[in-house]
């Protein structure tokens, strides 16, 4: 058996200042063979990214390697002097980072950023270098490379940047490619393209590849072998088929269980007996790129254009679309957190768009919102109790302090937290708990409709499942209606009664879950569905 391309032996990494160090990677053993793709899976904070950075010795200064060895082709990388590492990085190990938006130097042309690698490692200059740069760009699927090489990162779209990053990583023909969450920041359609690109290049060049992801779907698509990390330890490592057929470690099983699947919805549609709770007609939202008379004439960005939808009491309507499709603007416009350019928002028989500010304030108690990022949605300076009481005070509900405190306690237990938590501050809670608090805040005013804007996308899969369950339970108990905004089709299948698909500010398709997910009519919906990574294996 040939020696492995990369061997990580007993890697231990600690983090933090000298007096308060914590171990973030503990006795990690990993091997990657030539031509093999190892996918390292784990939730946030499991130490998978630090593992990748340790291999190239680029840990942040707060992290320290306290033990272990890394061999590349049987060469001890850790024993090399610091300056010799530059001959390894880029040349022998290519590295693709997670955030293409910030990983490229903003003031350097793409061509130069690719060419730099060639000059540095292969000593190429002038015409030779230029040819290689264009080749490299063309190889990762960038059209018109002559033109593109002269452009700056900000002129590239997200997917193009990620391609450029891959071109840089591959430019000097490395033996090993490390890709750290290469698709997390991208929409599903782009994700599929990038994964395919990585896979083809890896196969073509016979490289080893270490791919890091939190998404089991992604792992399924590209992995030869899957390794699972939890809290700095490797808990399972197995070939792909074996892993997906029967994850051995309980943690792996837990991950699988929490994974939303693109499956037929089991939820019966809500009966159309009464008038819809909310009816939106011809809604448009425009953003002036500038404002004020002396700053020039407004130049509008059309975020939502003539969108219509309706929701009944107790119903969940999922609004699906990729980033920038206008779904968040739509949600906020319904709550009149954004000014409407046109359209009617009829809620409980009243057109919100026509309401005066005072009347609107009173009406607000019936419509509430849950935000995407539970970390930004709460004022860090307020205690949970104060946060939950804010609406009561603003709407002059809930009587005196004692009654309000009782209401807060009730709300907290409703979302599965303890009444004692009312005295704590947001930063003392985990992401999932915070999202529960946000839901509690929205429920404080006993609304009829909750607009949930990607309430789970910032959370790990296991937590995501809990939140979805909570929302479902609340709907059943309180008869809430949800406008559920998401990009994750797997989630849609689980929570929604009906689905509306949004593309470039326009609702392109609407129907029941089963209709849209399994018999899409609009080409955009079709392409969206085609790009979702599928785990076509038997679930345990």
């Amino acid at each position: 058996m040939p020696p492995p391309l990369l061997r990580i032996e007993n890697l231990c990494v600690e983090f933090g200042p000298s007096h308060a160090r914590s171990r973030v990677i503990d006795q990690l053993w990993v091997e990657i063979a030539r031509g093999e793709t190892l996918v390292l899976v784990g939730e946030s904070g499991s130490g998978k990214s630090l593992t990748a950075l340790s291999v190239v010795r680029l840990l942040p200064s707060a992290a320290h390697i306290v033990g272990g060895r890394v061999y590349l082709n049987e060469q001890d990388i850790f024993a090399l002097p610091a300056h010799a590492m530059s001959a390894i990085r880029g040349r022998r190990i290519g590295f693709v980072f997670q955030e293409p938006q910030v990983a490229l130097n903003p003031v350097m042309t793409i061509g130069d950023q690719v060419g730099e690698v060639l000059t540095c490692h292969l000593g190429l200059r002038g015409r030779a270098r230029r040819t290689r740069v264009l080749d490299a760009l063309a190889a990762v699927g960038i059209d018109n490379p002559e033109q593109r090489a002269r452009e700056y990162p900000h002129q590239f779209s997200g997917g193009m940047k990620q391609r450029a990053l891959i071109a840089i990583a591959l430019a000097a023909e490395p033996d090993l490619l490390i890709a750290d969450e290469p698709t997390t920041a991208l929409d599903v359609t782009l994700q599929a393209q990038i994964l395919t690109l990585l896979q083809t290049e890896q196969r073509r060049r016979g490289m080893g590849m270490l791919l890091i992801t939190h998404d089991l779907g992604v792992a399924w698509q590209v992995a030869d072998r899957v390794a699972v990390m939890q809290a700095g330890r490797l808990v399972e490592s197995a070939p792909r088929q074996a892993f997906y057929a029967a994850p051995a470690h309980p943690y792996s099983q837990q991950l699988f269980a929490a994974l939303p699947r693109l499956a037929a919805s089991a939820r019966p549609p809500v009966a159309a007996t009464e008038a819809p709770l909310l009816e939106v007609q011809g809604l448009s939202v425009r953003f002036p790129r500038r404002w004020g008379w002396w700053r020039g004439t407004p130049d509008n960005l059309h975020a939502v254009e003539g969108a219509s939808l309706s929701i009944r009491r107790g119903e969940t309507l999922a609004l699906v679309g990729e980033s920038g499709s206008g779904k968040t603007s739509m949600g906020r416009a319904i709550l009149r957190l954004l000014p409407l350019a046109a359209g009617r928002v009829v809620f409980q028989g009243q057109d919100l768009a026509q309401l005066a500010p005072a009347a609107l304030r009173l009406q607000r108690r019936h419509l509430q919102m849950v935000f995407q990022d539970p970390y930004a949605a709460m004022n860090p300076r307020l205690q949970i109790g104060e946060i939950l009481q804010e609406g009561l005070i603003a709407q002059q509900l809930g009587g005196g302090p004692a009654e309000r405190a009782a209401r807060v306690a009730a709300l907290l237990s409703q979302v599965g937290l303890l009444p004692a938590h009312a005295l704590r501050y947001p930063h003392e809670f985990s992401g999932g708990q915070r999202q529960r608090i946000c839901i509690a805040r929205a429920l404080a005013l006993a609304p009829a409709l909750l607009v949930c804007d990607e309430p789970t996308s910032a959370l790990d899969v296991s937590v995501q499942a809990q939140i979805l369950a909570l929302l479902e339970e609340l709907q059943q108990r309180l008869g809430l209606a949800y406008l559920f905004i998401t990009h994750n089709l797997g989630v849609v299948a689980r929570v929604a009664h009906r689905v509306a698909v949004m593309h470039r500010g326009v609702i392109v398709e609407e129907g029941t879950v089963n209709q849209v997910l399994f018999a899409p009519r609009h080409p955009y919906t079709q392409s969206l569905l085609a790009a979702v990574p599928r785990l076509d294996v038997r679930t345990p």
Partner: protein
Amino acid sequence: MPTLVPLWSDVCLWLLVLVGLWYARQARRHEPLRAPWRAVRRGPMALAAACVLLVYLAIALLDSVHLERTTRPADGAETAILSVLDVLLTPLRLGVETSYSAPFATRAFSQESVLTSAGRVQREYPRLRYGAAHSAESQGARARDIFQRSATGAVAGLALALSALWLALPAALGRTDRAARAAGLTLLALGVGGGVLLALATRYHVFGTDKVGSDVFYQALKSVRTGLLIGTLTTLVALPLALVLGVAAGYFRGFTDDLVQYFYTTLSAIPGVLLVAASALLLDAYMTRHAEAFTSLLARADLRLLALCGILGITSWTSLCRLLRAEALKLREMDFVHAARALGARSGQILRQHLVPNVMHIVIITTVLDFSSLVLAEAALTYLDIGVDPSMDSWGNMINAARLELAREPLVWWSLAAALSSMFGLVLAANIFADAVRDAFDPRQREFGLTPSAPTARVCE
């Protein structure tokens, strides 16, 4: 019986102390406020600097309780209104020689004509009236005396500092970590240094005397209050303006924003020094027209100081306002502000509850950062004759007076040295402390301790 005569600036300073105490109380109760301060407290340098600042503050506070004696003092030279510090330092205050004398000198710096017993006029270096008056004039005796006194002072200071540590440290700091050790050492050093200085100052002029024979050490101590007042009260003036206008502009945008931006762009377009100069002239005019309102010199100087703070505040609120506006623009798009609006909260409530608390870190950072530059600005402005009243003890006045002394031969260096070093001590401590505060409050965590922002243009250079 002495009665309390509060000057306006005293009132302001004590008010500020009360606000500080109130803030500390709030901070102790509210974890989000407390956490960054805990981070500040963990830095050894910061805590040591804080100790130094506290000593300066204590001096300023002692100097900010003014008493009036109703009984007529025996010595006619004594002015009626005195601060507690003046009373404590009575030997320094009254030990006035005729003119220059060097530190620890026994004789005056320059000759004077003296009538000898024979009735002849003679030029000689006269013996000082107060400086080293008790000790023999020989070199050895004086050195011995100085050593003995310093030793006594050091021991007394050490004892005092130790007892203070014994009482205060465990309670305030909880545990004896590195920072607490540094603070303890600083306190000990300050105690010993202060003890030695005070023990010597009663008998010697430790920093010499100035042109009219006043003790320079005493002047340097009195200047602390001026520097501190300028550094703090200015922010007090600038803060409400900047806070209200900046946050409102950022939150409401539109016309409010245009108006506020217009205001501060216009104000900051005017060169600061000229604005200060023009306003200083205005003040002079006012005082002349209302001369009867300022019966005592102290009240005049005091009002002028307050006015200077006001003027500096008006010229310096713009940069803070700009920062706050930018921050408010960011905050208004935060989800929790949207959430509050969705809950039906009024604008006023949103501003008060969500925006203002979340820009306070900027306010605190700016306040501590501006402090040192304001102390330095005072000296520069006083040099330009648009600073504090010439009758007021201030480092600017000391430097201004002392710069002529550099041309003397032999050099009269002590006045300048005393002013510069005591100012340096305060500014250095303030800078170090400000750094720690910024690191603790700035959400962008940085790699290392010292992370300044763009230096604001200094007034003088």
